[in-house]
């Protein structure tokens, strides 16, 4: 049985992405985890989906859900797809683990018409306090790892990402900010734990 009666994914970030995607879209999810989001997209939005996931256990969860997924890393996973192969490319909660961020975003915008990026906000108030007052690397709900065992190699804030988009001339179609209790509208870079951006290429970026 589905996890919820209204066919929505359980996780709030998944719900936002789910709602941002049009029915019957072609979707590529980079770092798709256990496939909860893709499963909802395929089941209730008739999306045609493909996942890429490194972790073997998560990969098998996807297989159990009947999803098309291949085991591999994000960077090499993207390259062979033709231009515009997908309507949406999802990079959710794994951008912070990617070394060549600009390459991955550029490639995603090549193979997809839109790119949906979700990441934990490193500049959340609690992180700032831990670092400024506690003097320790932050460990928060959205960044739960200790400094020595974190898979994360990039630590970015909402503001960092907005600057990045402006520099790379990426058009932000929509931005969602999430706190512990729900959406955050006031000073998101301080109060949001997670952000979801829907991007497309800017005008100068050429078509598709």
């Amino acid at each position: 049985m589905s996890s919820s009666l209204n066919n929505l994914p359980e996780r709030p970030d998944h719900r936002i992405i789910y709602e941002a995607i049009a029915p019957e879209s072609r979707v590529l999810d980079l770092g798709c985890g256990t496939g909860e989001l893709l499963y909802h997209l395929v089941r209730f939005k008739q999306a045609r989906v493909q996942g890429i996931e490194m972790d073997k256990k998560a990969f098998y969860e996807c297989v159990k859900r009947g999803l098309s997924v291949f085991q591999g890393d994000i960077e090499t996973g993207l390259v062979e797809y033709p231009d515009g192969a997908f309507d949406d490319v999802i990079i959710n909660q794994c951008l912070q683990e990617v070394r060549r961020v600009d390459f991955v975003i550029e490639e995603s915008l090549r193979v997809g018409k839109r790119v949906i990026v979700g990441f934990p906000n490193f500049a959340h108030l609690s992180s700032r306090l831990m670092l400024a007052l506690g003097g320790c690397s932050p460990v928060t709900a959205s960044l739960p790892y200790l400094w020595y065992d974190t898979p994360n190699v990039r630590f970015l804030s909402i503001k960092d990402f907005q600057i990045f988009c402006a520099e790379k001339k990426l058009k932000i179609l929509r931005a969602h900010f999430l706190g512990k209790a729900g959406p955050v509208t006031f000073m998101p870079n301080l109060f949001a734990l997670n952000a979801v951006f829907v991007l497309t290429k800017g005008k100068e970026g050429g078509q598709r």
Partner: protein
Amino acid sequence: MASKITKNEKASPEAGVVEIQYFTFAHPPRELLLECGEKLGPITLAYETYGRLNTERSNAILVLHALSGDAHAAGVHAGDNDPGWWNEMIGPGKGFDTNEYFVICSNIIGGCKGSTGPASPNPKTGRPYALDFPFLTIADMVNAQRHLIDHLGIERLLCVAGGSMGGMQALQWAASYPERVRAAIPIATALKHSPQQIAFNEVVRQSIMADPAWREGNYYDFGQPEKGLAVARMIGHITFMSDQSMEEKFSRRLKNGAFSFNFDADFEVEGYLRYRGANFVKRFDANSYLYITKAMDYFDLSGGKLIPNGKPIQTRFLVISFQSDWLYPSYQSQDIVRELKGKQVDITYCELKSTYGHDAFLVEVEEQTELIRHFLGVTLKGYHSWNGQGIKYGGFG
């Protein structure tokens, strides 16, 4: 009510007693035109089936065998204890669950296990074809299988699946008849043989042909070129294993505890290879080995030939490779994946951990079962009747 029956059937562990069947077609003047330009007919295919074809005829799976395989993929023959070559994967509750699916396996043309091959009588002479047998390709094998599938009244196969040369046939099915294949599972295989793989096959062929008993292929009145064929098979067995699996299986253990200081088989690995070689000559035709290895070398679906441009393809793919397989290394499976990505085909790909080398596709049952069971379930039933926890039995997952 149905669930109880299913449970009982699930408890039965094996495909049971099965019978080999034969289908003959391509009677002159309607012989099968082969890729080499020659015609072959009549053609007999030996095949076996497991499970039941449903009324919609939508649950048929064609399982494809490797170089030395045959139609006997699962179960046992009456009065015999030898289970089929993929018995661990085919049967009630197994990866290819015969409670759900109708599984077919046929011996390839060119083979020597009941299907027409070089050892079969040439209708023109009444004597074995030997080297008058036309050269075959993987596409010819698949074309012949297609006649069998027509004969069985199956319009669209749920799946084609196989390892090694069986994987080549699965790929060829998707290339030749995409509209008749809903899913393909190529395992431990390649879009084309590399020079290294061709080289091994050439050594194999040379060892057969160098045996004077081969007699330019006309040995049928005298007996097989046993020495050459045995060496050919020994070479094969080395390539099927990994360095690690040989270490685990034999290490440097001696057969008789001490060096013999002659050329007897001192080491266990030598004994094993000799045993395998000697056994093989009893069951496999040398000319078949020549023809089939050549067909494998000719196979090439690279460079866009797997899915020709402008042909939208609905076939779903599950591609599997094994870490220690150096005969068909993972990069070759990844080449398949790359080819499919360019055509926006749904792909599931996984490199499984195994130390068994190329043999892994026959041995590593558990993970393959997990992958195949779910992949087939969603292919047959679609996402809409799929509950995200695996097929129908519910509960697990």
